[in-house]
């Protein structure tokens, strides 16, 4: 173990090697390490986000499904109600129409009856006059008694 100038040479080599490492070795490796750490962190964050998105989407689709079902049920209920209403309305209008027809028919029947009565009355009076005429032709002058006949005819 002797000391000599090797010590100083080694000292210089020591600093040259350290300088080289500082300049050309350390920065790229540390940079790569940092970048990779960041990449991994980003990847994990993205995965987390993806999971959240999936959860949200699942929830949304469930909601949409439920909403659709509700809407469909409502539509069916509405349609049923509307159908019932239509039937109800149809019934009502049919009944009104029937009533109207019945009333019309009744009125016509009444009219017809009045007319028939009138006719009948006229025929009966003519018949009566004719009968009376025949009776009276034998007994009295028709002219003389025509006013009486007219009164009778009026009363009939």
């Amino acid at each position: 173990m002797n000391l000599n100038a090797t010590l100083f040479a080694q000292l210089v080599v020591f600093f040259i090697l350290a300088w080289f490492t500082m300049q050309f070795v350390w920065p790229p490796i540390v940079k790569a390490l940092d970048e990779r750490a960041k990449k991994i962190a980003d990847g994990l964050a993205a995965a987390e986000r993806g999971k959240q998105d999936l959860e949200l989407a699942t929830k949304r689709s469930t909601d949409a499904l439920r909403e659709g079902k509700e809407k469909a049920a409502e539509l069916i209920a509405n349609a049923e109600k509307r159908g019932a209403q239509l039937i109800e309305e149809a019934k009502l209008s049919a009944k009104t129409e029937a009533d109207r027809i019945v009333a019309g028919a009744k009125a016509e029947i009444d009219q017809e009856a009045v007319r028939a009565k009138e006719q009948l009355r006229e025929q009966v009076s003519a018949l009566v006059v004719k009968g009376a005429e025949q009776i009276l032709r034998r007994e009295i002058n028709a002219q003389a008694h025509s006013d009486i006949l007219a009164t009778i005819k009026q009363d009939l």
Partner: protein
Amino acid sequence: MAAGSAAPTSGEYIVHHLTHLNSTGHAQKSVIDWTVINIDTMFYSIVLGLATVFVLWLAARKATSGVPGRFQAAVEILVDMVSEQAKGIIHSAESRKFVSPLALTVFVWIFFMNAMDLLPVDLLPKIGEMFGIHYQRVVGTADLNAALGMSVGVLLVCIYYNIKIKGLGGWIHELFTAPFGSHPLLYPINFIMQMIEFVAKTVSHGMRLFGNMYAGELVFMLIALLGGTATVFGFVGHIIAGSIWAIFHILIITLQAFIFMMLTLVYVGQAHEGH
């Protein structure tokens, strides 16, 4: 194993293996001689240093934020480990831009240099001998110069951040007033304590690594000597002891590299904290 034709004694074998290939061509005489440089340590530490930055650069070049390959993932694990440790110790993001890469480099580089210990102790010296190189030590960190060189480097970084964070005046003020408090009588004691702290930190930082690797290398040599006896006991002993020590050493080389890196971060972190 030595240059001569006669088989060396155990002592010669060990001493030969612990002799550096230096600029003088023979073993260094004095304990400290700044005119000498260890060529083997420089060669292996620079080659392994280049291998370090090349491997790291390969991963950095193709680094993407996409799915990483196995190689990229391995380097990323390393970078992330160093980065996390640095974040826990150094709170200034600005300082981390330099200190974290420094810690990473130190970790990988020391790991590579330590790992040279796992090669058979005689392999590279033997190959060297074929090319006329008679002395060679392949474990850079088992050379005190290399270990202390790096720990002095860390000391310089600490001083730099001390001045940068606290200002030159602030740091000098701290040198005289901490740890015991601001009183003229305490100034010299504080200063001496601070100096001892800096020296102790740096020396223990380097010595810890050097000691572990030097001892490890020595044990490998002793195990090789055991095999070198060319007896059944020696052969079996070499295999068993060598395997056990090598497996244990995988832990040591990683642990020592990690400890050096952690202490680097801790010392630089301390430079950021005011007393």
